[in-house]
């Protein structure tokens, strides 16, 4: 239970402004649900129950209704994640190009399996479907940066860029 519910629940002015800007493109407030969850997540890393509640309030919808949406979409995190998200493609082109080896190298370098976060909270490793860069397979995304096979030969150097 939160000790300071008002403070924890409150969305920042920046978050509210960004969500309202999305609502302006849409015929009603609830339609901004997916965008709003992602805005909150970009600011906070993930969507806690408190954040979900505050967002639902802003959109004028029930917490459960918003949660049913949040839990449908894989890019919305309802549990804490690391400072950086690594998304490793496990779709067919990367499979053909020996994506299994890349997965082995990444899990070994991080010391965690898919779906886990490193003990220092630095990386969360997730599987992802085709990232639309199959000519560079196997590929992975770290936060908003895409890396292809030609760059991933030096995995340690790439990981070192994300502290």
């Amino acid at each position, binding site marked *: 239970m939160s000790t300071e519910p008002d403070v924890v629940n409150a969305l920042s002015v920046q978050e509210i402004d960004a969500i309202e800007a999305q609502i302006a493109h849409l015929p009603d407030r609830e339609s901004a649900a997916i965008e709003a969850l992602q805005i909150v997540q970009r600011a906070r890393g993930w969507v806690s129950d408190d954040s979900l509640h505050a967002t639902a309030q802003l959109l004028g919808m029930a917490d459960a209704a918003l949660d049913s949406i949040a839990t449908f979409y894989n890019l919305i995190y309802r549990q804490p994640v690391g400072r950086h998200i690594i998304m490793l493609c496990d779709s067919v082109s990367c499979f053909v190009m020996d994506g299994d080896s890349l997965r082995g190298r990444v899990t070994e370098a991080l010391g965690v399996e898919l779906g886990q976060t490193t003990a220092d909270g630095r990386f969360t490793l997730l599987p992802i479907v085709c990232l639309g860069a199959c000519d560079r397979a196997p590929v992975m*995304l770290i936060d908003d940066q895409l890396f292809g096979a030609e760059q991933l030969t030096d995995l340690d150097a790439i990981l070192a860029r994300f502290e």
Partner: protein
Amino acid sequence: MEIQTGQETKPLTQRIIDAGGLVNLATYEAAGGYAAARQAITEMTPAEVRDLVKEANLRGRGGAGFPTGVKWGFVPPPEKRSLGHVYLVCNADEMEPGTFKDRYLMEYDPHLLIEGMIIAARAIGADVAYVFLRGEYYEAYRQLTQAIADATRLGYLGERLFDTDFKLHLSIHRSGGRYICGEETALLNALEGKRAQPRTKPPFPPASGAWGRPTIVNNVETLCNVPGILRNGADWYQLLGSGEDAGTKLYGVSGRVNKPGLWELPIGTTIRELIEVHAGGMKSGYTLRGILPGGASTDFLTTEHLDLKMDYGTIQAAGSRMGTGTMILMDDSVCPVAMARNLQHFFAQESCGFCTPCREGLPWLEQLLADIDAGRGKPGDLELLDKNSAFIGAPGNTFCLHATGAIEPLASALKYFREDFEAHIEQGRCPYAPQHIDKQAVEA
């Protein structure tokens, strides 16, 4: 008739090639950009725009190949609909595994898409448009956001375009993920902020789509074809194709070829030319065995199909679909059972969960394939796969075509690579496994 000297032959990518990368607003305008939008709004009626695109025979590049101008004509005319918005939605949710064409267009020539959307909006009378963009497409988001701001600043978007009453409000929806969002009615639910479950049809989106209003959903590449048609006409567009279809196509090849990549070529270019010329042929030591011609949800073709033209009709007649036109190659080092399993894992995971055959059936198929791949297959398993594939994949047993698409690569793998499936069961192991282990040991 043939294409005249000096006429465009790569209307989708020539500007990108000339610019050596990103085409910004100044470059786009210098290359004649936004003149087609001006023409559509100031010199043509919506019906004339629709007729031109119909006459050009532009077919949807998202995979289904439906004639674009015909689809536009399904929006009820103003006198037959209630007052309110008409929506244009660009499906930029590119999530078909093996597909990497729309991202390229959006990252390097975002104004081409915007101009295509302005013209499409004119054709259907839309006043509000959305780009439904994959959440993971960060660079495309950055470029589109910048391009929309630039276009708005110069009056190509917003109120009173080209000093007419025509207006268009364009914004981006960043998706929260899930392959099913590419299905057009699921996409509309996601756009409305809901779970992306497909809707029942009818009503079809042109009559009742986003928020119950007339809505047209077009793929990125489809919309990017439109400005060229306005600039050069329907005859030119037809001449661009090399078979029964018109225009150019962004074709891609991934897998163990020397030069995996993406090329704009006459639609109807043969599979052989794509693989052997543009992709530089198979890598030394690897032999081609199977081809998924247009993404994960298309049926396998084999080396006997190399001389087929990559167009809608030809590939369909061969039992598959051109789909997105970006092919995935299976070479002789890849275990067909493992590849089928990888594909079913994707489809099982991405089922929206609404219909039982898809939600329960696809994970069940994945498990059976995993068992066979691991050497735990039993006599009769292949017949079980055949039977359940036929049931799960039959259109009409599920709300949308997700399960149907899932079964296309599986049923065709069972047909063309059956001896590999049988070998797994007979030997109680994956015949490819030692090869994989040896190769990894060598690389290590």
